[in-house]
């Protein structure tokens, strides 16, 4: 065979090689410090698109993290989680009986399209949110539930443009009678009964307490928020483009009424999917931040450990306690509706109490946090049910259920179950979709086996079925947890325990309710926070005294922030507003 000419071969090879290296060249960032950068564009990734930015229906963390930069309410949480005025000029005047809240609005507040914000906008926004809560099944409509007439509005079943027509006509079926506007800058809310938690609830970011522009909403009642032309809010930023599930762009609102005035001119968000990819992209200079938008808890422990061990990156890491507590819940009631039974129920008296305590003391919570999250993305829950950093937290080490005392645990077990019959064939249920829950279950099984000599079977149940079964009292003990909605103890206790919630037979994971608990919870919920706080702490002590749960860990978020970015960060609940952020020369 005659060989090919070397020129032809070279041409083929050069072509192939060229195709391999094509596009391989690109720029890289070299961080530095200095004055403000000329380009004030902030770039960061999120790992799934927001579901909606409409405050009336938004309920996901990402929705609220993004939406907080577009919408304001009458009050808000500051960075230290205190409720402070926002669109309201001052905190509302509250009548002595705690039933009437009078808000005076600032007169300089405008929407991003220039429309002035008046009390009519507040009434429209809140009536809209209340009337959508029934027909749309929203999560946070209940934040407005203390207002007289809420139940009428939330009973509405009309949706879309027809609902808008009713709202425009101020139809009584979609109007809360307790909400009035004596003048353009005064809003009066009359409550059915005192609710000391209400201001905290309506301060929740991008939720039912926010104010929207009827002129924008009525152009597309359900999807106005997704179109830059109609996504009008009062916040420091407005949407300029959106490619659903791919990327979003926002721009600062010129002459924004609030403070601090935004330094950033643009914010670009990419919708990625993998935390590992997003972190790598951050490290390669594609992004200025990682963790914003509600994704601070998605990072892998290995990635965070690697960053901690990297000299030029470790200072960019911010670990921030967040708002979720995870615990083991006992089935406290066994009846016709709750058929899980088990040896831990309140009806079992002191014996059951000792068993619960034995299982609690047999778990080394600090070791658990080390094993399941490297003590990085969670911390041992030692200060009660309410997460560290939130109002109602009992203090480090204040929860006796968090103690690790295998000797006492063994002794309690021996006295409560000398023959081992009560603890034979116990099954612990969990939902395995979240890896940390699976790791925790395996750890707990080992601790109970090692420290109590009790073999506990594990059952993994898919999340949906698990939640339903747990609410129906099908498990003798199981994984449980709560992510706070707003910074008020009422959110925890009213959402988890007591007959007002529906315990023992409806909407209640443990089934726990006692007359004393119910009475104190009702009293606390009616009081202003200062007066209520001792009562809420007493409620925590009731749960501890009755050993209703085994505390496991509090969540921690991991943020990465480039050295040239200032003003970024987070409190337990939300990212600091984009309006705080500046980009320095680098």
């Amino acid at each position, binding site marked *: 065979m005659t060989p090919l000419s070397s020129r032809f*071969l070279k041409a083929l090879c050069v072509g192939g090689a060229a195709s391999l290296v094509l596009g391989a060249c*690109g720029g890289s960032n070299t961080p530095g410090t200095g004055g403000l950068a000329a380009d004030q564009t902030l770039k960061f990734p999120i790992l799934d698109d927001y*579901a909606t930015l409409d405050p009336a229906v938004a309920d996901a963390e990402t929705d609220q993290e993004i939406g907080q930069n577009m919408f304001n309410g009458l009050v808000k949480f500051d960075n230290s989680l205190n409720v402070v005025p926002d669109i309201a000029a001052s905190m509302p005047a509250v009548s002595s009986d705690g039933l009437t809240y009078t808000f005076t609005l600032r007169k300089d507040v405008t929407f991003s399209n220039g429309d002035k914000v008046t009390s009519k906008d507040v009434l429209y926004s809140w009536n809209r949110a209340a009337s959508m809560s029934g027909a749309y*099944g929203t999560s946070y409509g209940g934040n407005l539930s203390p207002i007289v007439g809420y139940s009428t509005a939330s009973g509405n079943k009309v949706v879309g443009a027809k609902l808008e027509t009713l709202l425009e006509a101020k139809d009584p079926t979609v109007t809360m009678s307790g909400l009035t506007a004596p003048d353009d800058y005064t809003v009066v809310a009359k409550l059915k009964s005192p609710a000391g938690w209400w201001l905290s609830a309506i301060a929740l970011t991008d939720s039912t307490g926010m104010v929207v522009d009827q002129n924008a909403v009525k152009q597309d009642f359900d999807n106005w928020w997704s179109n830059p032309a109609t996504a009008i809010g009062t916040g420091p930023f407005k949407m300029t483009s959106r490619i659903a599930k791919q990327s979003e762009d926002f721009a600062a609102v010129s002459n924004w009424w609030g403070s601090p005035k935004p330094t950033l001119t643009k914010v670009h968000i990419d919708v990625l999917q993998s935390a590992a*990819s997003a972190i790598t992209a951050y490290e390669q200079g*594609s992004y200025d931040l990682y963790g914003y938008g509600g994704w601070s808890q998605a990072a892998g422990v290995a990635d965070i450990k690697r960053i901690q061990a990297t000299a030029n990156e470790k200072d960019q890491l911010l670990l921030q306690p967040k708002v979720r507590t995870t615990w083991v819940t006992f089935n406290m009631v066994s009846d016709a509706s709750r058929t899980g039974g088990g040896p831990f129920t309140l009806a079992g008296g002191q014996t059951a109490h000792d068993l619960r305590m034995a299982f609690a003391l047999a778990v080394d919570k600090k070791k658990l946090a080390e094993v399941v999250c490297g003590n990085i993305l969670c911390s041992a829950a030692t200060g009660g049910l309410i997460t560290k950093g939130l109002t109602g937290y009992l203090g480090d080490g204040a929860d006796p259920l968090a103690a690790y005392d295998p000797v006492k645990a063994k002794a309690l077990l021996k006295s409560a179950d000398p023959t081992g019959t009560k603890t034979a064939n116990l099954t612990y249920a969990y939902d395995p979709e979240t890896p940390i829950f699976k790791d925790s279950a395996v750890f707990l099984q080992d601790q109970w086996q090692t420290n109590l000599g009790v073999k506990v079977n594990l059952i993994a149940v898919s*999340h*949906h079925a698990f939640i339903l079964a747990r609410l129906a009292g099908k498990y003798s003990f199981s994984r449980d*947890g709560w992510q706070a909605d707003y910074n008020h103890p009422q959110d925890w206790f009213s959402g988890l325990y007591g007959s007002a919630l*529906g315990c023992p037979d409806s909407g209640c994971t443990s089934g726990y309710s006692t007359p004393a608990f119910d009475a104190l919870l009702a009293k606390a919920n009616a009081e202003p926070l200062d007066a209520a706080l001792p009562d809420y702490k007493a409620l925590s002590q009731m749960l501890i005294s009755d050993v209703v749960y085994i505390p496991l860990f509090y969540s921690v978020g991991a943020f990465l922030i480039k050295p040239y970015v200032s003003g970024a960060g987070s409190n337990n609940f939300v990212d600091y507003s984009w309006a705080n952020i500046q980009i320095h020369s680098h």
Partner: protein
Amino acid sequence: MFTRGTLIFIGQRVVLIAFTVLAVSSIVFLGIHRLPGDALFNEHLHGEQYALLLHHYNLDKPLLVQYRDFMIALVTRGDLGESLVNRGVKITPLVLRELGISVEVGGFALVFTIGLGLLFGVVASVRQNTWVDYVLSTTSVIGYSMPNFVIASFLILVFGKWLEGVTGGTFYYQLGAWKGDIGQLWLPAFALGFPYASIVARLTRASMLEVIRQDYIRTARAKGLRETVIVARHALRNALIPVITILGPLAIGIITGSVVIENLFGIPGLGKEFAQSILNRDYFIVIGVFTMYAAMVGLANLVVDLLYVVIDPRIRY
């Protein structure tokens, strides 16, 4: 080239593809609703609020009623519905946009598959039993022995990490803001196409070795034709027939392989949506993605069948 018979063949196949797409949609519709969980349920939202939400999305209706409504919308308006997770997002334009991105990546991967495959195969055959042949043949064996996700991870490691100083991490840069330019495309396309390029290379080499021993090639050389002309014009054309034969399965492999590659590289295409929508239980997006995949596979097969006519004039439909 397109005779009446060919047009009839195309028409029949298009009808068949349409029926296949509808069948896939139906099976997925009924199957996805059997999975535990849904897009709306969460730890905080249950009881009455959850029931209201199900009602709002018509998910409380009997499954067959939901199926009927879905099929009517799909057949009459091409409407796949709205996302359950991302409110207001229409699925038909969403999956069409993502399909465009996937086609872009897949098309470029096919260029690698054919280009590199032919290059390796031809060079290896004309340099048979030399070090060039050994290197290229070994590379091909490695290529089709490794799954594409291994190749992709390795390439990310090399070009994204080890050579970051040179590349600036090009493959992550701009991935979210997908522009589909060559700087973004080449690495994922290579990872997707290389295993199949190796198969094409092996097949081309074998086919070329057979063809270049034929009498007509010897005659061409005797006539004094240049070697490049002999290989490119006379040998390669005949050697391509068996290669074209496997292009159908290769195209399907590339389409399905994009699920892994798009997730690894964060490309906002159909493959990434495939995984995410199933995890989110976003019923209608899952159906939309499967429907698009079914259509793509059907059309890819049709295109390959039509290519036979182009390559081999003896084939007629």
